[in-house]
């Protein structure tokens, strides 16, 4: 699926951990950007202001 099936066991493990780590960082940055853009508006709306 991610093209990791043909790698050796060690390389596959390194690549798997690397893909998960890269996705985690990407999502952290993406949601951080989203939070900075609309976070205050959402908190104001939830807070009833």
């Amino acid at each position: 699926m991610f093209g990791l099936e043909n790698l050796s066991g060690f390389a596959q493990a390194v690549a798997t951990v690397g893909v998960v780590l890269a996705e985690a960082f990407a999502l952290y940055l993406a949601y951080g950007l989203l939070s900075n853009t609309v976070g205050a508006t959402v908190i104001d709306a939830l807070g009833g202001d």
Partner: protein
Amino acid sequence: MAILGLSLTMVAVFVGFGLLIGTLFGFFGMGGSFLVTPALLVMGYPSTVAVGSGLAFVFGTSVIGALRHHDHGQVDYKLAAIMTVAMTIGIEAGKSVVFFLEATGMADLIINVAYVGLLAAVGLLTLRDAWSDDDTETSSDLADRVQSVHIPPMVTLRGGVRVSGTIIFAVGLVIGVLSGFLGVGGGFLLMPAMMYGLGVPAAIAVGTDILQITISGAFGAFTYAQSGSVALPVVAFLLVGSALGARVGAGATNLVDEDEIKGYFAAMLLAGSLAVASNKLGTVYGIDLLNTLSTVLIFGAALLVSGAVVLAAVCRLRNDRTGTWCRLTTS
């Protein structure tokens, strides 16, 4: 239509489930592996893939949670480093105990009884503390006694807590032995040990716990990935949801009182204890109803508790402590 080999319905299920677990993980610093692995087993994934994918997911979510807690200044790296070294040694010792018990043929029974007993004991202790009027009584007594022991080297932790490094190492060693023995991440033991045993503030205990889980999750995922036992598409979509949930959960720790955190934490542990006991009894005696009850308890508790976390945070934002719904979130 399929994305990465999964139908749109399954993508929605995994993203939604990830959101739920991420909220709990960001808030409590636990609840990842003991929710994802059973869920994947119920969906028909082989046990090695369920465990491997669960560990990979826990690793990804804890990276996000640790980054978030780091931003809030809620991670003590000194404490995490000592705990990680001690727990790694302890886990190896715990595994040896399991191999010894397997040779005697009693491993399954002893491990399950110990797991249920520990979950219940920590849950009841936490619940008693949350319900206590004098919230400093139980935890402070033990923490004060521990902090008064001056075995060098003394270590100053975040929140001004000063504890013997030797004691921290010993606590990590014991938790490591139990983790290796029970085959769990150890978050449900580490968090209360830091809060009640060492006197670390709850928010810092959660942040430090998540960093430690990141390291052990990476190691676990690496081990299982070597034999191709990680379903990456599943992990990828679970992470999409949990990344948002972890942000919500970690943000909620800044809004909701420590005592309220303790009440929810206790509820999760007690539900987990009942679920494991019910599952084992159902398997041993072949009663499907008990297995169903176990699934309902795990997912029901996760849904209710994550809902309570979000509701409590919204109530604090609105400064509402008397509304019908808001009163339900006060333990």
